[in-house]
C-alpha cells in the first residue's frame, strides 16, 4: 500500500460548519463571559452596554493544510486538535490557543496551519468585530487517489531488502518500511521482503516499524543506477518474548486434556529444561521422589500411564530411569496430557496418556542450536532442503553424554586406601530426525528417533573383594512414516506405520549374560469427516505388536568329581500384540452442547491367548455462556499385564486384562481472556489388577507357583483444580491443586489401604515472567502431603534368614513428612543479529528444606533416621541458538 499524503478534504469543511454552530451557542450562552470557552466580545468602556448580538458568524475562506506528522502518517494514525481562535475584525487569525491536545507533533502542525487560516470577518451588531471561536483541526489519513489512467512507465526497483527478527532471523511480515524524506512507504510480505521503486538516489533515512518490535532507524546510501539492499534486524519489544503459534484451534472434546506449549516446557524451574518433567507440575500428578521423572497419575503406577511420541508408544522415558528425558526439548512442539477419561482414539492405559507432539521443521530457513556442557553435548538443526523448490524440510537432533569421562576421577577421589579401584562408564545418547513434505493435498512425514543407555562397571578387586565387571545396555529405536490427505468428499485420511527395535542386554562377569529384545510394529490410521454441520465422525485403527526374544545364560551347579556342566541357556519367544479399532463422533445438536460418544474395540494377543476388550466412552461439554462450560465423561479402560508378568516360565500366562472404569466431571471458567479455571472431580474404579500370588496352580499335571493373579482392586477419587494463565509474550503460569485418595485392597489387612504413591494434597505454583533487557525470572513452589507409611513398632528376628523384619501397624496408616520446596530460575538473554546467547541459573530447593524422602532403620528396627531429600542444588546452563 502506498500512502503519499493525507487529505483533509471533507473533514475540514465539516469542521467549518461545526464551528459556526459552536460560535452561535457560545455567544448565546456566554453573555458576560470573558475568558475560557465560548466567544468573547470586546467590552466598550462607559456604562453598561446592551448585550451584543452576533449578526454574522465568521466563515472559513481559505483553508491551510497542515504538515501531517510523518510518523503518525506511517502508522496511519489520525488525531484532533482543538483550539480557541481569536479572529480579528479583518478575518485574520490573531492567535490560537490549544484547548485539547493530540500530542506535540500534531499540535504544532495544526497550530501552524490554523494561524494561516483566513475567515470572513464576524459582525456584531452589524459591524465587523473580533471574535473568539472554538475550532477543531482534524487529521485523517486517507487512501491515495486512484492513479491516472494514462500509461505510466513503472520505475525500476532500486531499494529493496528484508526485515527479520534479531537473533532468530525469523521474517517479519506486514512491517512498515518508510522513507520520511521522500514520503515513500511500503510493507513487507510474508517472507519479510520489501521493494520500493523510483527512490531518489542519495542518503536515505529509513524507518521500519511493526507493532511487536522496536522501531528501527537506519541511513542508507543509494547510488544512481544501483539497487541498494538492506537487511534489517529488528528487536522484539519483549526480548525473547514467549511465542504462541496457533495453527488452527484444536477442538476441545475431552474433559481433561491439558496442553503445554513449547515455551512452557523449557523454562519451568526445577525441571532441568526437561519437558516431560514439567508434566509433574500438573494437577493429578503425584510428586515423584528426588529427581525421578516418573509420571504418577492419580495415584497410579508409572506403568499405567502410556507415553507416546506422535502416537507411537515409547518404552523408556528417561535415560537411566531418572536422567534426562530421551527426546530433545527442541524437537517438541507441545505435550498433550490426559490424566484420565480420555477418548476412544487412545487405549492400553489404566491411568493417563501423554502424547508428545514433535514439531515440523522450519520450512523457510536454517535454524539450530548447539549445547555443550559437562554432562552431555548436543545439537539441533532444521532447514528446508531447497530454498527454491518444494523438496520439504528436515530437522535433526542428537546428544551424547560425557559421564563416562567425568565419573572415574570422582570415584577415584572418593576411594578409600586399599579399596578396590572402580571404573564406571555410564553414558547415553539419543537422536531424533524428522522430514516433512507437502505435495498438493498430500502431507508426508518421516520421523526417526531413538535412545541408548550403556553402563560398564569394572572393579579391580582387593583383599576384600574379587574382580567384578558389569555391562548393561538398553535403548529403543523407532521409524515412523506418516501420510495425510483431505479428500474432495470431505474426508481427512491419515495413516502412520511405525517400525521399531528395543534391545536390552546385560553381562555380569563372564558367566551371566542375557538379553530381552523386541521388534515392534505399530500402525495408526484414521478417517474423519464432518457428516453435516454439528456432526463429525472419526474412525480409525490402532495396532501394536511387540515380538520379544528372551535369552539368558548362566552357569549350572557342578557335582563333586564331575566336569562343570555347560551353562544353562534359556531362550524364549513372547509375542504381545493388540489390535484396536475405534469410532467416535462429535455431535453438537446446538452450539452450546457437544457430546462425544466413542467405542473402542481391542483384541489383545497374549501368551495365554486372546483377550478381547470392548471399551465404551462418552464425554460431554455444555457451554452455559461465553465464559462457563460444564463437562463430564465416563469410560471403560483396559490394559495388558506387563510382559514379564505374563510370560511363560517367568510369569503367569493365564493373566487377564486389567480394568478401570473412570468418571470425571467439572467446569471450565474463563475468568478473563487469558485466565482459565478448570475444576473437576474424578472417581476411578480399578479391578483385575495384577498382584503377586503365593498360591500354587496345576499346570500340565504339576503343582506350580502361580506367581501373579488378577485379584487386585482399588479406587482413586479426588478433585483437581488448575488456574492457568495463557502463554503471553511476557508471562506464563499456573496454580495446580489436587485433593485425592488412591487405595488398593490389601489381602493381609483385609482392607483398602493407600497405595504407595497416594498423596492427599498436592499444590504447585509455577510462573515465569520476561522482563525488559532479556531477563526472565521464574519460580516453582510445591507443597505435598507425605506418602503413606506403615508404622513400625519393633523388629522380629527371622532365624532362617538371619535378619529382622519389622513389626508393622496398619498398612499405610501413617504419613511421611509434608514436602515443600521452592525453586528459582533466572535467565539472561543476549540477542545478536544472527544468533542468541542465553545463560541461566536454576536453583532447586532455595531454602534447603530437609524434606525426608524415607525412613532409615537400624538392623533390628529400634532406631531410625530420616533419609533426607535433595539439598539446595544450583545448576547453570548456556545455550546458543541461531
Amino acid at each position, binding site marked *: 500500500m502506498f500512502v503519499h499524503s493525507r487529505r483533509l478534504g471533507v473533514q475540514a469543511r465539516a469542521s467549518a460548519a461545526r464551528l459556526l454552530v459552536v460560535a452561535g451557542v457560545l455567544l448565546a450562552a456566554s453573555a458576560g463571559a470573558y475568558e475560557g470557552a465560548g466567544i468573547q466580545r470586546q467590552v466598550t468602556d462607559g456604562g453598561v452596554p446592551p448585550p451584543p448580538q452576533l449578526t454574522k458568524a465568521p466563515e472559513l475562506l481559505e483553508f491551510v493544510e497542515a504538515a501531517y506528522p510523518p510518523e503518525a502518517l506511517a502508522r496511519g494514525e489520525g488525531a484532533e486538535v482543538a483550539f480557541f481562535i481569536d479572529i480579528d475584525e479583518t478575518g485574520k487569525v490573531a492567535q490560537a490557543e490549544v484547548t485539547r491536545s493530540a500530542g506535540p507533533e500534531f499540535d504544532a502542525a495544526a497550530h501552524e496551519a490554523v494561524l494561516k487560516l483566513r475567515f470572513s470577518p464576524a459582525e456584531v451588531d452589524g459591524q465587523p468585530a473580533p471574535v473568539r471561536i472554538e475550532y477543531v483541526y482534524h487529521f485523517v489519513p486517507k487512501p491515495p487517489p486512484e492513479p491516472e489512467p494514462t500509461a505510466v512507465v513503472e520505475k525500476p526497483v532500486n531499494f529493496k531488502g528484508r526485515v527479520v527478527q534479531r537473533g532468530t532471523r525469523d521474517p517479519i511480515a506486514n512491517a512498515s518500511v518508510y522513507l520520511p524524506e521522500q514520503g515513500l512507504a511500503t510493507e513487507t510480505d510474508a517472507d519479510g521482503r520489501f521493494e520500493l521503486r523510483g527512490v531518489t538516489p542519495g542518503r536515505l533515512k529509513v524507518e521500519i516499524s511493526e507493532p511487536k518490535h522496536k522501531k528501527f532507524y537506519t541511513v542508507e546510501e543509494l547510488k544512481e543506477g544501483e539497487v541498494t539492499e538492506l537487511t534489517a534486524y529488528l528487536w522484539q519489544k519483549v526480548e525473547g518474548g514467549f511465542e504462541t503459534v496457533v495453527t488452527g484451534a484444536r477442538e476441545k472434546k475431552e474433559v481433561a486434556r491439558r496442553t503445554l506449549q513449547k515455551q512452557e516446557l523449557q523454562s519451568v524451574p526445577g525441571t532441568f529444561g526437561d519437558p516431560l518433567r514439567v508434566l509433574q507440575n500438573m494437577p493429578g500428578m503425584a510428586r515423584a521422589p528426588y529427581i525421578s521423572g516418573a509420571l504418577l497419575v492419580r495415584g497410579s503406577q508409572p506403568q499405567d500411564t502410556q507415553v507416546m511420541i506422535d502416537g507411537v508408544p515409547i518404552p523408556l522415558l528417561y535415560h537411566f530411569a531418572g536422567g534426562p528425558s530421551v527426546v530433545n526439548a527442541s524437537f517438541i512442539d507441545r505435550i498433550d496430557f490426559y490424566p484420565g477419561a480420555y477418548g476412544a482414539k487412545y487405549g492400553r492405559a489404566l491411568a493417563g496418556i501423554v502424547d508428545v507432539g514433535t514439531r515440523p521443521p522450519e520450512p523457510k530457513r536454517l535454524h539450530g542450536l548447539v549445547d555443550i556442557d559437562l554432562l552431555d553435548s548436543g545439537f539441533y538443526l532444521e532447514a528446508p532442503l531447497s530454498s527454491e523448490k518444494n523438496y520439504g524440510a528436515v530437522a535433526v537432533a542428537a546428544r551424547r553424554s560425557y559421564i563416562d569421562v567425568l565419573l572415574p576421577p570422582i570415584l577415584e577421589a572418593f576411594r578409600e586406601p586399599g579399596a578396590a579401584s572402580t571404573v564406571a562408564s555410564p553414558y547415553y545418547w539419543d537422536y531424533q530426525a524428522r522430514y516433512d513434505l507437502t505435495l498438493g493435498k498430500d502431507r508426508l512425514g518421516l520421523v526417526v528417533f531413538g535412545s541408548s543407555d550403556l553402563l560398564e562397571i569394572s572393579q579391580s578387586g582387593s583383599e576384600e*573383594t574379587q574382580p567384578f565387571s558389569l555391562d548393561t545396555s538398553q535403548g529403543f529405536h523407532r521409524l515412523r512414516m506418516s501420510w495425510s490427505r483431505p479428500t474432495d468428499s470431505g474426508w481427512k485420511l491419515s495413516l502412520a506405520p511405525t517400525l521399531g527395535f528395543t534391545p536390552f542386554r546385560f553381562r555380569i562377569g563372564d558367566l551371566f549374560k542375557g538379553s530381552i529384545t523386541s521388534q515392534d510394529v505399530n500402525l495408526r490410521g484414521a478417517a474423519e469427516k464432518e457428516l453435516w454441520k454439528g456432526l463429525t465422525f472419526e474412525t480409525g485403527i490402532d495396532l501394536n505388536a511387540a515380538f520379544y526374544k528372551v535369552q539368558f545364560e548362566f552357569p549350572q*551347579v557342578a557335582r563333586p568329581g564331575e566336569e562343570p556342566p555347560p551353562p544353562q541357556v534359556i531362550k524364549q519367544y513372547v509375542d504381545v500384540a493388540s489390535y484396536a479399532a475405534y469410532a467416535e463422533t462429535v455431535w453438537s445438536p446446538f452450539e452450546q452442547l457437544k457430546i462425544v460418544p466413542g467405542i473402542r474395540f481391542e483384541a489383545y494377543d497374549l501368551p495365554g491367548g486372546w483377550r478381547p476388550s470392548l471399551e465404551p466412552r462418552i464425554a460431554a461439554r455444555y457451554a452455559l455462556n461465553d465464559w462457563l462450560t460444564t463437562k463430564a465423561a465416563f469410560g471403560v479402560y483396559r490394559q495388558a499385564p506387563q510382559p514379564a508378568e505374563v510370560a511363560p516360565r517367568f510369569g503367569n500366562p493365564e493373566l487377564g486384562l486389567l480394568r478401570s472404569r473412570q468418571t470425571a466431571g467439572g467446569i471450565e471458567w474463563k475468568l478473563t481472556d487469558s485466565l482459565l479455571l478448570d475444576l473437576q472431580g474424578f472417581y476411578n474404579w480399578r479391578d483385575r489388577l495384577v498382584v503377586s500370588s503365593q498360591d*500354587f496352580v496345576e499346570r500340565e499335571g504339576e503343582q506350580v507357583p502361580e506367581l501373579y493373579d488378577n485379584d487386585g482392586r482399588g479406587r482413586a477419587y479426588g478433585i483437581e483444580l488448575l488456574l492457568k494463565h495463557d502463554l503471553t509474550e511476557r508471562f506464563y503460569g499456573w496454580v495446580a491443586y489436587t485433593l485425592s485418595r488412591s487405595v488398593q485392597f490389601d489381602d493381609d489387612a483385609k482392607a483398602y489401604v493407600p497405595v504407595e504413591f497416594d498423596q492427599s494434597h498436592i499444590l504447585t505454583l509455577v510462573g515465569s515472567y520476561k522482563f525488559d533487557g532479556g531477563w526472565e525470572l521464574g519460580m516453582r513452589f510445591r507443597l505435598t502431603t507425605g506418602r503413606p507409611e506403615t508404622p513400625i513398632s519393633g523388629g522380629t528376628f527371622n532365624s532362617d534368614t*538371619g535378619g529382622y523384619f519389622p513389626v508393622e501397624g496398619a498398612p499405610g496408616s501413617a504419613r511421611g513428612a509434608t514436602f515443600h520446596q521452592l525453586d528459582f530460575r533466572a535467565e539472561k538473554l543476549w540477542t545478536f543479529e544472527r544468533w542468541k546467547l542465553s545463560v541461566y541459573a536454576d536453583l532447586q530447593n532455595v531454602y534447603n528444606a530437609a524434606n525426608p524422602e524415607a525412613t532409615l532403620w537400624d538392623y533390628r528396627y529400634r532406631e531410625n533416621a530420616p533419609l533426607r531429600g535433595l539439598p539446595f542444588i544450583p545448576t547453570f546452563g548456556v545455550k546458543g541458538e541461531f
Partner: protein
Amino acid sequence: MPARLILTLTALLALTACSYDFERSSEILDRRILAIQVDPPELAGGAPAPDSVQARALVVDPSDPLAVTEVRWWSCLRPPRAADGVGTAENTRCPEGEGTTLLASSSAALDAVSLNVPLPPELAGFLATGSDLPSPQIHVQLEIDSERGPLVSVKQVTVTGKLPEGQEPNRNPALQKLTLDGADWLPDAPRTLKYGECPDEKKKEVEAEDGSLVRVCEHDIEPLFDEAESQFYEARGFSGEKELERERLRFAWFTDAGSFRRGTTLQFDERDPSPDNVGPKAFWREPPTRTERATLWVVFRDGRGGTAWERREVLFE
C-alpha cells in the same frame, strides 16, 4: 535442551554414599537371639516321621551370659508359599488366637533355651502319604524377656511331602574347625592374646568411643568345613523352573568386644560374580580399649533352614 553444568554432581554422589551411625548387627550390646536350630530342619514324607523336633536357641547377653529369664515357645502352621526362600520362615509371627499353640512357658537360663516341638498330628498324616502336593510349614516362635521388652524370633521346620528322586532331607551344617590367625581354635579353649601386639601391617584404624581413631590389631578367623557335605537339592531358580542347586554356607559373625570388618561372609562359589565372593574368612579387630576378654560367635546357615553355631573366647594378657 539448554546445556547445563551441574556443579554438585559430587554432592549427589556423596548423598548416595552417606551412612547413619546405627548399631552394627555384628556387635552384641545387649540381650539378643542370634539363632534357632531345629533338628532335623526338614521333615520329608515317605519315611517314618518323628513325633517331635528338637529346637534350641542361641541367646546371648554380654552383661549376664548366664541370666535366667522367662521363655515362651509357640508353633503354628503356615500355608504353603510359592515364593522364593525354600526352607526359610515367612516374615511373619504366628497369628494370635486360633491356629497358634503355646508349647511352653517357663524360666530358663540363656544358655539352655530349648524345647521338643511336637509334630502336629495333621502333618504326620500328610507325611505318611508321601504326597507331592505343596505342604503347610511348621512355624516355631520363641519369645524371651529382656530389659527392652520381649525378644521374638521365628524359625521354620520345613515339611516336604515328597522329595525329588535322589535328594536327601536337609540336615544342619557342621564345621570341622575354626582357626584364628591360621592356628586351630578349639571350643572351650580360650585363645590368649597380647593386646595391641601384632605386625604393623595387621593393624587397622577403628573409631574409639570418644570419636578418635585408634590403630588396633586385626585377626583373621577362618571356618573350615567339608565341601562334600554340602547337599544338592532342587529349587525353582532364575529360569523359573526347577534347577539343581547346591547349598552354600553363609556365616554371620558376632562379638561382644571389638568389631568385625564385615559382619557376614559366604562360602566361595565359583558361579558367583559379585565382588563379595572371596570366601568365608572373617577379620576381627580388637576393641579400641583393652578388655579382659572377648566372646565371638559365628552362626552358619545353609540357606534353606539348616543352622548351627560355634562360640569362642579370647583372653587378653
